[in-house]
């Protein structure tokens, strides 16, 4: 699939000489949903703001659909839209005027039919004549999405789309993102919610201290780095569990639960053998459950490793 966004060696330092972006290289494929995952202050917003022309970066190149976002900014920006993290809206404007203003800024002539369909899709049509200040937080966020989509962009950036919103609204936003992607819009979102990246995106980049630590397909990332654990429930509580077995498999014993942790990357794990050994030592297994580490755990692990290095 063709790259809709190519970022090469991008650096950005703020006046206080903090390096916000440290040699960023990243390609986004047309049609995908991509997540930029990182803790607060990692450089996620600086990166997407640099792509969209909201902040100036110091060196490197950013190409959107093959157009340099500085030298050919008109062509590059025409196909991008951005939904900011905060509710940056003018309170006294009506929804309708706000959306049409955004469309005009991007050099597009009026198209009432398109704006009407857009507002209907975002369940804002009945609020078109309401002033922004009269809307709820969720509606305001949808207005921001409508503004970003007003000029029919092919590449949409969502900066922390579900930060500080309730669960219901989060699910609603996710549905909108999926719907837009289905209609052909490439989506890049920043988030510090692992669940969001896991739920929505096909690929993830993990960013910390202005550096991209890792880029991979979401599933592969979980598989590649994922730890699994098996919790074995014994029929009876064992106060003096066999020390040899405990040491051999590095088991954690708590009451009648044995916890065994392993990484799916390791090939030499023989779970049948371990379970047989437990039984052969006279312990009766009542039940067991397996747990796979979430992206969250992988994320914390990677950031810790990055800090150490």
């Amino acid at each position, binding site marked *: 699939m063709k790259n809709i966004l190519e970022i090469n060696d991008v650096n950005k330092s*703020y006046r206080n000489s903090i390096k916000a972006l440290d040699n960023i290289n990243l390609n986004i494929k047309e049609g995908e949903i991509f997540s930029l995952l990182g803790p607060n202050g990692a450089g996620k917003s600086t990166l997407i*703001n640099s792509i*969209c*022309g*909201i*902040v*100036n970066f110091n060196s490197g190149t950013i190409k959107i659909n093959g157009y340099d976002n500085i030298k050919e*900014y*008109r*062509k*590059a*920006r*025409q196909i*991008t*839209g*951005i939904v*900011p993290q*905060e509710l*940056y*809206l*003018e309170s*006294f*404007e009506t929804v309708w*005027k706000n959306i*049409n*203003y*955004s*469309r*005009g*800024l*991007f*050099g*597009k*002539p009026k198209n009432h039919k398109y704006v009407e369909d857009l507002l209907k899709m975002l369940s804002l049509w009945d609020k078109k004549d309401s002033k922004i200040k009269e809307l709820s937080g969720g509606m305001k966020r949808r207005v921001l999405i409508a*503004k970003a989509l007003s000029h029919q962009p092919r590449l949409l950036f969502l900066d922390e789309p579900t930060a500080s919103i309730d669960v219901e609204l989060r699910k609603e936003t996710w549905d909108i993102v999926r719907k837009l992607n289905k209609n052909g819009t490439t989506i890049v979102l920043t988030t510090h919610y692992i669940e969001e990246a896991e739920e929505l995106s096909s690929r993830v980049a993990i960013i910390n201290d202005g550096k991209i630590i890792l880029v991979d397909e979401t599933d592969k990332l979980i598989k590649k780095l994922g730890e699994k654990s098996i919790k074995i429930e014994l029929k009876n509580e064992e106060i003096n569990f066999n020390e040899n077995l405990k040491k051999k498999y590095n088991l954690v014993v708590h009451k009648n639960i044995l916890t065994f942790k392993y990484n799916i990357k390791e090939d030499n794990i023989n779970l049948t053998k371990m379970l047989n050994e437990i039984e052969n030592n006279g312990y009766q297994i009542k039940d067991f459950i397996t747990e796979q580490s979430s992206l969250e755990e992988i994320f914390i692990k990677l950031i810790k490793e990055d800090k150490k290095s």
Partner: protein
Amino acid sequence: MNYFGVIAILIHELDRFKRTLLQSLASPIITTSLYFIVFGTAIGSRIKEIDGINYGSYIVPGMIMLTILTQALSNASFAIYFQKFTSTIYEIHAAPLSSFEIILGFVGAAAIKSIIIGLIIIITAGFFVDIEIQHPILMIFFLILTSITFSLFGFIVGLYADGFEGLQIIPILVITPLTFLGGSFYSITMLPEFWQNISLLNPVLYLISGFRYSFYEVSDVSLLTSIITIFTILIGCIFFISYTFIKGYKIKN
């Protein structure tokens, strides 16, 4: 050229003017009327004429200038500062707009508002005194050029302001005193020689004088110096704004 973008900014900014239409129009009408009551009636009863012109009529061009300068400056500075303050400016940065187009939108809107207000003052003044406009084209030229120049100046003020207080400093501490001391309500020939020479250092004097010439063919300084002054301020503002945009200072992080 992104024409739709410029028009979008223009309409958006003029909408704000429309939303506050009552204040926008009532304020210059009331202020003009008050000036006529205070200066025209109270003082005018003691100063019958200046340069052969009835005092009430004489002060009209100065009054228009005073309002245009402060209105253009505060409208343009508020418009851009407000977008910075609410952070809605992100959209302008993300849009395919050049610096020139952004300035054209904001400054154009502020200048249009100032020109409308200027014309309203002329109409209001017409209810109080007789107004003659000997050189209407020259009057329109001064009105438009001054509105554009001081809107551009206001745009710069708005870009550099760090707070709402900052927006008020230039109009209150610079423009209003310079306008009052620039012969809005008197001719500098009425001052002692020393103060006449000091007044000649005030650029606003040249604007008022040139503007007054277009009405009554009387002026404190030559018409040419007035025209040169307005162009000099305009070019100065253009250079400064170009420098600001090239550096990106105060515009983007």
